[in-house]
């Protein structure tokens, strides 16, 4: 009874009459009450004017609705659902009878536009070629470390990485490195040569200076020697002076005049 007023707002003043026995009323009205319930409600009817009034009015309402129903449903259209159910039946059987992949592929190609077929074919071809290349370079190895499976694609990638990594780490290409090494070597050779030449020049300068000094000394010495004893004018000393003049690499003592010679020259009276 609560819903009655909630849903429809029946008791909004249009019909102030109400009875709390609506459930029994309806059950009795439609003949679904048990004999005991019917008897009990008939006793209630004898004392309830509201229910008596409604029972009569509802009877009229039901008669009017029944009249409408009889006329409206005098002709019922036929429902031939055979065609409507056939595709449904096919779709229901579909999961049970799973199609093969080949059949699905054929259906796809038959329904797809030409460009999609061409695209699918090209994609399949590329995949096949890549797969073939991969498996052609596959290496399976069984050794003490266990089973090793290496594909060619991985190997190639590693090789490529090596090639790329070298210049990335140094910043130079192999050719540039070679050129740098060559340049360094040439630079070192040139430096060594320059150093050797400088040393050589210095040594030559010293020798030349010594030679000049010896020459000047030799000139003075020869005069003194001529005025000294013949012991001093031995063939060895003249030969040593000659060697010193000729050979710049002879020991320095040979070229430098001896103190005894100089003293002899000084003491010798003129």
């Amino acid at each position, binding site marked *: 009874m609560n819903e009655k007023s909630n849903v429809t707002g029946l008791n909004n003043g249009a019909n102030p009459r109400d009875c709390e026995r609506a459930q029994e009323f309806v059950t009795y009205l439609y003949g679904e009450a048990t004999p005991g319930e019917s008897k009990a409600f008939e006793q209630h009817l004898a004392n309830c004017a509201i229910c008596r009034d409604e029972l009569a009015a509802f009877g009229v309402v039901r008669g009017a609705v029944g009249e409408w129903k009889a006329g*409206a449903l005098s002709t019922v259209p036929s429902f031939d*659902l055979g065609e409507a159910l056939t595709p449904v039946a096919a779709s229901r059987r579909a999961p049970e009878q799973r199609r093969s992949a080949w059949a699905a592929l054929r259906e796809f190609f038959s329904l797809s536009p030409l460009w999609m077929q061409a695209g699918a074919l090209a994609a399949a071809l590329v995949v096949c070629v890549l797969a073939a290349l991969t498996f052609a370079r596959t290496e399976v190895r069984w050794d003490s470390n266990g089973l090793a499976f290496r594909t060619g694609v991985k190997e190639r990638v590693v090789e490529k990485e090596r090639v790329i990594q070298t210049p990335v780490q140094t910043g130079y290409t192999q050719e540039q490195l070679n050129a740098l090494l060559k340049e360094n070597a040439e630079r070192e050779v040139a430096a060594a040569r320059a150093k050797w030449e400088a040393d050589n020049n210095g040594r030559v300068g010293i020798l030349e200076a010594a030679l000049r000094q010896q020459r000047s000394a030799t000139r003075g010495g020869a005069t003194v020697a001529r005025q000294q004893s013949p012991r001093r004018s031995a063939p060895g000393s003249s030969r040593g002076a000659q060697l010193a003049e000729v050979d710049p690499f002879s020991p320095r003592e040979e070229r430098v005049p001896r103190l005894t010679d100089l003293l002899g020259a000084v003491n010798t009276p003129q």
Partner: protein
Amino acid sequence: MTTDEQLVERALAGDQAAFGEVVRRWERKIYALTYGILGAYEDARDATQETFIAAYRNLQGFRGEAKVSSWLHRIAVNQCITRQRRARVRSETSIEDEVEFAGESFLATNERASPARATEAKERTEAVRKAVASLPPELREVVVMKEFEDLTFQEIADALQIPLSTVKSRLYTALRQLRMRLERFHLEVAPG
């Protein structure tokens, strides 16, 4: 005689003819229900057809707990609700207009019998039709299932999945509202 449940089991096994038998058994009642709710012949025919197609599609979902009749009625009511919602969204002609149109076609056939009686019947059926169409959907469903199909309270409760007491209170309320509406149409419903 094969029960509805047995026919559904055979249909589940792939026997399409078994489901055809279910359709033949229930098409009239389902059509009456959809017509009572929708109030238009065309809509009722389409809704009935959709009800059986939907039932066939969902055969797997049928549980033996409920009767096939309750199951079909529930589907039919849902179909009617869906159609009414769609009609509301499309802002098509109101249900009352459709009812009026349907009534005109129905009354046109009656007019051939006797002009005087036809006029009287026209007024009466038009008033009843409008009164039923103006009921809230939850009340209309119950009154149509009871008056058009003679379903028991328990069957209505099963079909609509509502308590038995709710069915009775809704029906009581629906009858009172119909009485008031018919009185407004100056129909002789008050007890003499």
